């Protein structure tokens, strides 16, 4: 005789509670922008409080002028498995960027502006680094609308208290 038991109920609400994630995005190339976006989105989907801090070249991700035009270059990147001499040819970066964007779109992953929209709709927080803003002479109005503020490194250290921090 087999005994049928009541089905287990997944634990949804305890796992994420209290966990916090801070992601420092310091690179502005297309291939280095996505890891932060993907991780932030995944963490938010698990109910984890998530903060993204954009600094140095990472500013390109939240700069209205550049956010839709991030590029990927195969130059000096052995992971592309292409002959290094060819990678420096004119037009190679825009060709490689075009190919990568097509691949990203092909697996139904959004472009950067839509990704940021999705992240903030999911409750994620976007912060810009003050030193980078000063260096690049950028004001809040130059940045993506949903950036919550331009904050100093110490502000970031404060707000990331207790967070697991990832530097990209």
């Amino acid at each position: 005789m087999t005994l049928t038991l009541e089905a287990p109920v997944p634990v949804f609400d305890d796992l994420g509670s209290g966990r916090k994630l801070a992601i420092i995005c310091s690179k502005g190339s297309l291939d280095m922008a996505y890891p932060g976006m993907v991780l932030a989105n995944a963490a938010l989907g698990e109910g984890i409080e998530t903060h993204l801090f954009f600094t140095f070249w990472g500013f390109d991700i939240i700069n209205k002028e550049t956010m839709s035009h991030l590029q990927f270059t195969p130059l000096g990147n052995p992971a592309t498995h292409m002959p290094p001499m060819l990678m420096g040819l004119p037009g190679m970066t825009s060709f490689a960027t075009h190919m990568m964007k097509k691949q990203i779109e092909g697996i139904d992953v959004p472009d950067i502006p839509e990704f940021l929209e999705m992240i903030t709709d999911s409750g994620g927080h976007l912060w810009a680094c003050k030193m980078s803003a000063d260096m690049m002479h950028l004001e809040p109005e130059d940045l993506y609308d949903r950036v919550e503020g331009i904050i100093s490194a110490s502000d970031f250290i404060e707000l990331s208290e207790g967070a697991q921090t990832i530097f990209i």
Partner: protein
Amino acid sequence: MSTATIGGHDVHVDQEGFMTVYDEWTEDLASTLADNIDIRLTDEHWAAIRFIRDDFKAMGETPTLRRVTTVGGIPTKRLFELFPKKPAKKMAYIAGLPKPAGCV
């Protein structure tokens, strides 16, 4: 995968309790599953659940949250309100589908 009972019905579930056989799911079961995780189903919840059921049938996999927004037309913000904290997994659980496998 093993057999267990939900709301008095024998169904197949995985170790966590997600149902594993598409056709064993009924709307009555959905209400019990929702009760289990403290969600009271409204018409808006049902719209999301029906969308992911239909999409699973058409595509062969549980849609990601983004797909529920872009194809199903339910804003991401609203999904986090309807199914707090872990909308993709909670929707899948109530709809009797596996957890979504996509990264985004």
